[in-house]
């Protein structure tokens, strides 16, 4: 294990400890965001080191990353998403401990993506769920969501651990299936998704985002991609994913609770990624990895924009328009663009990702391709419906503040990533696609 990897792993953990010591949220947040920013910068060296010398063990992930270069980006991506979650967390109604827990989740997620060793994955996977459970136990009504969370996450951790154990002995179909089911629970694949709805209801948005948006299951899945399952299993999983995508999209459209709508959006998007991962075409896989990162980043920003709005106006319902575009124009614009970027707005990298994903899938599974089209269409409706409900309507009695400097900076960064890569998508496709690795290995 190299020094850099160690630094990457330790930074969020140390940050978590420090944040836990802080007396007020703002300090905790400053500490957390700083440590995560540093971790992101360090992690950006992973793809660089990979580019310079594939065998240099500067990063522990170089072996798997040479099979799938997207994995080299994964640590940077994970800590960037966690950074967005922490930095955008509003101070109002948050305790320093919550920030610390977000950092802990980030540290665990970093462990999974940066050290793809089966034992590390198994342990980090299990540890990552603990902070969320702690938070839920405190916040949930009569313990319902905490219990439900535990009931879902314990089997998930068990399955992932046994899957890792089975797979470390060499690829077996059982091991693969066990691992995948374990991952699927945490990816909230329908019908194993209920815990996520309960969690968004009760936990701070930043914690949910840090836990869900990086979708580290995808990284684990990718790191195992040399173990090819039988076609039948792959197809079954693609079908389940596609059904998840459409079903969640459908539920999202009719949601009247803003947080749950966001949760269904997450679920639907991870379903889309799932379809792509199970498709053998490299276009689809590239699309899937690109969608993974795009959606992770965009919906993290989107969800945190909602959190920022809630800090100003309280929990939001989508029943009728009750916001004001005039008061918070930038927040509204960021919310809309981020939401649409996650469902494929042209001129953002979301469009590229979605295009690749669909084009790649349709060759192998024509009907699933069409289901995915339907899911994206519905997700778009959810985003715009939420936008209209949250930002249109009569101005409130007390004018609310538009984006603060900190929020504006973070969202500008996210938007710049999404739009920049959208305008020059070749950068993104080259990084995410296996073609790069293929040329290198020749």
């Amino acid at each position, binding site marked *: 294990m190299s020094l850099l990897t160690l630094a990457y792993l330790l930074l969020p953990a140390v940050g978590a400890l420090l944040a836990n010591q802080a007396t007020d949220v703002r300090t905790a947040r400053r500490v957390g965001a700083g440590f995560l920013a540093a971790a992101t910068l360090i992690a950006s060296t992973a793809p660089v080191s990979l580019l310079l010398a594939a065998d240099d063990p500067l990063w522990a992930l170089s072996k798997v990353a040479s099979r799938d270069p997207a994995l080299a980006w994964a640590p940077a991506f994970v800590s960037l998403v966690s950074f967005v979650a922490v930095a955008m967390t509003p101070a109002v109604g948050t305790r320093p401990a919550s920030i610390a827990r977000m950092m802990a989740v980030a540290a665990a997620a970093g462990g999974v993506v940066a050290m793809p060793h089966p034992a590390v994955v198994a342990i980090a996977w299990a540890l990552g769920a603990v902070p969320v459970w702690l938070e839920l136990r405190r916040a949930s009504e009569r313990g319902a969501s905490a219990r439900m969370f535990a009931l879902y996450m314990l089997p998930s951790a068990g399955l992932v651990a046994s899957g890792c154990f089975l797979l470390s002995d060499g690829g077996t179909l059982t091991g693969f299936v066990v691992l995948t089911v374990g991952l699927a629970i945490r990816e909230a694949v329908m019908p194993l998704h209920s815990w996520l709805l309960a969690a968004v209801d009760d936990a701070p948005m930043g914690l949910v985002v840090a836990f869900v948006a990086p979708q580290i299951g995808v990284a684990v899945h990718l790191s195992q991609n040399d173990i090819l399952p039988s076609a039948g299993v792959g197809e079954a999983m693609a079908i389940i994913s596609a059904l998840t995508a459409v079903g969640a999209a459908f539920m999202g459209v009719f949601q009247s609770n803003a947080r749950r709508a966001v949760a269904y959006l997450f679920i639907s998007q991870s379903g889309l990624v799932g379809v792509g991962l199970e498709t053998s075409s490299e276009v689809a896989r590239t699309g899937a990895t690109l969608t993974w990162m795009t959606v992770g980043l965009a919906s993290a920003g989107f969800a945190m924009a909602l959190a920022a709005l809630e800090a100003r106006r*309280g929990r939001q319902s989508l029943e009728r328009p*009750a916001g004001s575009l005039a008061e918070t124009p930038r927040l509204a614009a960021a919310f809309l663009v981020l939401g649409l970027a996650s469902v494929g707005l042209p001129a953002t990298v979301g469009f590229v990702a979605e295009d690749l994903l669909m084009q790649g899938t349709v060759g192998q599974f024509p009907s699933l391709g069409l289901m995915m089209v339907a899911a994206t269409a519905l997700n778009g409706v959810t985003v715009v419906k939420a936008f209209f409900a949250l930002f249109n309507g*009569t101005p*409130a*009695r*007390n004018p609310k503040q538009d984006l603060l400097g900190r929020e504006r900076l973070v969202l500008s960064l996210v938007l710049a990533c999404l739009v920049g890569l959208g305008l020059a998508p070749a950068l993104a496709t080259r990084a995410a696609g296996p073609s790069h690795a293929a040329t290198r290995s020749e």
Partner: protein
Amino acid sequence: MRAFQPGVSEAARRAVTGDGAAPEALAALWQTLERALPDVRVSDSGAPAADGIAGRTGYAVSELVHPTLIRLCASFLDQGVAYWRMPGKEQGLLRAVRDLYTRPMGPPEPWLRRLPARLAAQAARTPAAEATVVALLEELEIPEDDWQPFITATLLSLRGWAGMMHQLELRPDRAPVASPPTRLMDYLAVQLSLEAEALAYLRRRGPPAPAPREDPREAQERLLYAGFVLAQHAGISAAALARGDRAARWLDALAGFDELERRRLLHLAFERRHRVEVLDGLRNHARAGRPEAPPARIRAVFCMDDREESTRRHLEEVLPEVETFGYAGFFGVPMAYEGLDDVRPTPRCPVVIDPRHLVVEEPLDGPHEHGSAVGRLRHGVAISGQTMVRGSVVSGALGLATVVPLIGRVLFPRTSERISHAVMHGVGVPATRLALERPEGAPAAADGYLHGFTVEEMSGIVQVVLQTSGLTEARGLVVFVGHGSHSLNNPHEGAYQCGAAGGGPGGPNARAFATMANHPGVRGRLAQGWLTFPEPTWFVGASHDTGDDSMIYYDEDLIPEAVQADLRIFKAAMEEARRRDAHERCRRFMLAPLDLDPEGALAHAEARTADLAQPRPELGHATNAVCIIGRRSRTRGLFLDRRAFLVSYDPTRDPDRSRLAALLETVGPVGAGINLEYYFSFVDSTGYGCGTKLPHNIVGLLGVMDGHASDLRTGLPWQMVEIHEPVRLLTIVEAEPDELTAIVSARPGLARLVVNGWIQVVAWSPSTDELHVFDGGAFRPHRPETDQLPVVKASMDVYRGHREHLPPTRVTDGLAPGGGAW
């Protein structure tokens, strides 16, 4: 919480902190107040007001009912937009709706499913609208004592449409084309039937959604924060508040000083600032005196309209020998008027008067053919544009040709208006006369109007106008200038016309008056009294367009040689005055650069009225604030910034104040009406005004809706009132306070206006400079705050480079005396 609010003075900071440090002192202040925090009653003003059934039951019936009801009202009242008229509308709304909606295969909306049965039952059991309404009220379980407020609230839920039904029931003659038999009771029966249906449907579906309420904690926090901030500014420390129940009283006082009270105080302060500025200006201008001068050579009578204030001022500056007067712009002629090309007469007198006399414009040379083949063809094409087969031909074949007007209208509005005008009216306007004289004793014609006026009636009109305005010494040239305005892209064109002429151009009234006053019979009759005019005296009618500042003079061919020279002088002066007037107006238009010259300003004003894209063709009465009833000699040479209605009245010739009383009774309501229309449209643009013009949608040729379908929006659009200062009309009357009190208290209409505070009244002593303001039931002397009055040479020196409202200023060019008479 740890630092002072920005802007807290040094002394206040010291008082709050005492000897300690700021953070601790502030924290103590916060805690002291927090401990004393009372329970706060949550006001529900945040939630939208629900009327009628919705308000009583909590069910959102309006969301279901309004779209259908609006559609029915619009189709019923339509004056010619729809190609296909509502069948059965001649039987009234209720019967038409019953007829339409009891047929089988009705609308599939679940909530309307039982409507046919309901309507059929109504038709059988309670055919009359009144009986239907009573039955519905009983069905809805409204207690009988409550009927009155319930019905009011119900009607107010679509106040525009209900109001239009009411208006057309009262005055069907004012419908743009023809009113169907309209009854408010029919409308109420239809509305209640639909609401009862919707309510029954929603009840079947489940309980109503609870109304959103503000969290009381939020209201408490707001109060606490306000108390905290205010204490800092006032320099009140925690220790000072801790004694006794002071903190609680502090917060109580603050809670009592609610939004309404705060706005009332701010409004009074706002009005006071304006009032003092104007009254000081008047007083100091009068005190500065004016030079002696020979009698005027030309007299010009304008409308009292605030927009003519600048025209008159510039005319006086250009031509010092002119004396100007102000009179309500229908010039006392209560007529309905039908111009040469008009297809029906329109009233040209204040709305309160129902005209009985019709005046028709007739061509001099033989009968005039109404309309043209070209016109009928254009109409045919316009209709076809909305049909299927003919529409395809029109849009396919002629569509490409419309690219030219499209580009022209958008990029070169002024030029294309000229071209289109030339194409449309290329043949030139034929010479005409007004058919004004009616033989003594002739009866009303078949159309219900008396055609023209008898000589006696004319003499009466002329005498009243001349005496009231103080024009009894008229000699030489007297010009009566009516005014109107035309503009494109403007559903509110009527609001820019002359209010005194009933929302039409007042030019024909000026022309009619001049014709009357020149009539030998009238002159003879007047001479029998004491009113004689030395020869040559000639009255000329004219019309001023306040939109593009153009002038039209009527019946010039009749003008005797002796006054021709004067008319030429007048026209030349007016030519310059209208350029300057346009220039002064342009300073208010943000799109007109401030460095325009008068010539450019006139072009700008012309382009504006012809521009389809211009939502502010002119600004109308948008700055009105003052009304001065008195001698022009006291205000001549005073720059009043187009904000004053100027009514000529000479107290020295009205010993018993009877003319003043009559004048107040007409001018008061007209001025207050205009002023309050602007006032309310400004202070509540959504409620009393009609919001922004941009999405307006003309419906039925009757009014506008917001976008696709909404209540009929009455009131003025935001674009017309945005620069308005909402002050109640400051009415300054040349009379002693006690005389004014006597006049007002003897007339209930005036008393309501004055005592209830719809206008501000000031008595301006005719003999001294004293001004008395009516306040709280009595006149109190105005105490001037300054003796200074800025002095400049010409009006342009005052306003050049400014866009904002300007205070009264003395303009020496305008001072050059015109009237030696008074």
